[in-house]
Every structure is written in structure tokens, then in C-alpha cells.
């Protein structure tokens, strides 16, 4: 790359290069968010199973 302008326009391929990288970035960030959601769901499951266990004991 020789200039910012060339970097942004990617020659004449900016319309294809940037959406490709953008999509990749979005999906990779979504992966992190989904992993977070799954962790929350797992923690909830563990807590719920504890409360039912305590109910059975009492």
C-alpha cells in the first residue's frame, strides 16, 4: 500500500474486500457473544438444579 486512499478503495475492489472483512469481523464478534450467552445459560442451569435439590431436601 502506498496511500490511505489506495487502502480505503483497495484499487477498485473496496466494495468486495471491505464487506468480506466486515462480515468476518461481525461473525467473529458474534461468536464471542454467543459463547457468553451459552455460559450464562450454563450457570443458570447449575443454579436451578441446586435450588431444586434443596427443595427436595427440605
Amino acid at each position, binding site marked *: 500500500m502506498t496511500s490511505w486512499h489506495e*487502502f480505503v478503495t483497495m484499487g477498485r475492489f473496496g466494495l*468486495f474486500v471491505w464487506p468480506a472483512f466486515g*462480515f*468476518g469481523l461481525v461473525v*467473529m464478534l458474534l461468536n464471542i457473544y454467543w459463547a457468553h450467552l*451459552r*455460559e450464562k445459560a450454563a*450457570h443458570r*442451569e447449575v443454579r436451578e438444579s441446586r435450588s431444586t435439590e434443596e427443595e427436595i431436601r427440605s
Partner: protein
Amino acid sequence: MTLKTFFHRLGSPPYFYQISRPWGRAFAWIGLLLILVGLYGGLWLAPPDYQQGNGFRIMYVHVPSAWMSLFVFMVIAVCSFIGLVWRMRLAYAVAAASAPLGAAFTAVALVTGSLWGKPMWGTYWVWDARLTSELILFFLYLGVITLNRSFEDQKTGDKAAAILALVGAIDVPIVHYSVDWWQTLHQGSSFKGLTSEIAPSMLWPLLVLMAGFMFYYGWLVLWRTRSELLLREADRDWAQQVIGS
């Protein structure tokens, strides 16, 4: 500690839960660093391709995702085998954690491949062997994920998905070969030319990015596996202890 006892202990969920945390954190930072360096090298330093201009740079996201989509399916198939043969709980958890990640990599590979195809081949989609087997792979991922989550008893889901993953692992190369065979019958080899010799200044960012994607996957798969283990063993003592009130 010998290697054998290490693997033996790794199979125990509480031990895995404990040690996977620092490993995951390390993977995340290494992955981020490698991806940033790779992107700098690929998007800025590498010279434009003499045939494809700057369009070839899509390679730096397409090739690592396509590679990961196959690698993750291989991981799932190996874990499925281990799970079915040795009944190792951790293996099923790793397979279940990997499937959504693999599907995501496959989606990225498909979309970026289309975006690359438009300026290079003049069309978003061609039915060549690579694109078609990638699409089939995506459907297989969806099948594995759906099957795994369809059953009331998670153990049944794990085993069913494992069988599908093993059959799928045999199927993907066959699909690739069959489309390849069909292509040569019809169009000849008009889509080649992307596999030509690649200059070192273009190659190293690609290798760095591939390594970066591997670490990124390593981080997320450890994270997700911890969740999968908790979901599978929610009522065990160790899970109750790990998740304090």
C-alpha cells in the same frame, strides 16, 4: 507427570474446568496479536497481486476460515469417535462446543468466497468442488447442531450427533471428489489460477492469520466447552462448587 496421566486427568471435567481458564486466556491474547499482525501484513504491507490487484486480499479472511471450517469438522469427528468408543464425557462437550464455531467459520468462508468470486469470475457463485463441498459442510454443521439439541436427554443428542459427524466426515471428501469429477466432465478447468505460486511477502500474513484463527478457535472452544460441561453435569458437586452463589 507423564503424558498418559495428563490425558487421564484431562478427561475429568473438574480438572479440565480448572486448567482451561488460564489456557483460554493465553490463547485469546496470542490469537488477537497474531490476527492484528496478519491483517497489517496482509492489508497494508503485501503488494497487490499482478493479476487480481488488491482483490486478492479477500484471501486473508477467506482461506483461514475455509481451513478452519474443515479443521473444526475434523476435531468434531475425532472427538465423536473418542466419545463413542471410550465414552469420554469431555469429548462430547468439545464436539458440542465446536459445532457452532465451525458453522460460523463455514458461513464466513462461503460469504467471502462469493465476494471474491464476483470480481474474479464475474459471478457470486460457481458450482465448483470447493464451494459446493463447503456448502454441504455448512448443512452438515447445521444437522449436527440441530440433532445434538433435539433430544430431551443430552446424552442421546451427543451420541446421535457423533454418529452423524462420523458419517459426515466420510461424506465431505466424497462430495468434493464427486463435484470435481462432474466439473471436469462439463466445463474443463476454467476456475483454476488461484492456486499459482504465491510470493513470500503475500504468504507470511496468510500463515500468521491461519495461526491466529487457530488460537481464536482454541480460546472460544475452551470457553464453550466449560459451558457444555456445566450443562451436562449441572447437578454434580464440582459444578455446584464452581458456580458459587
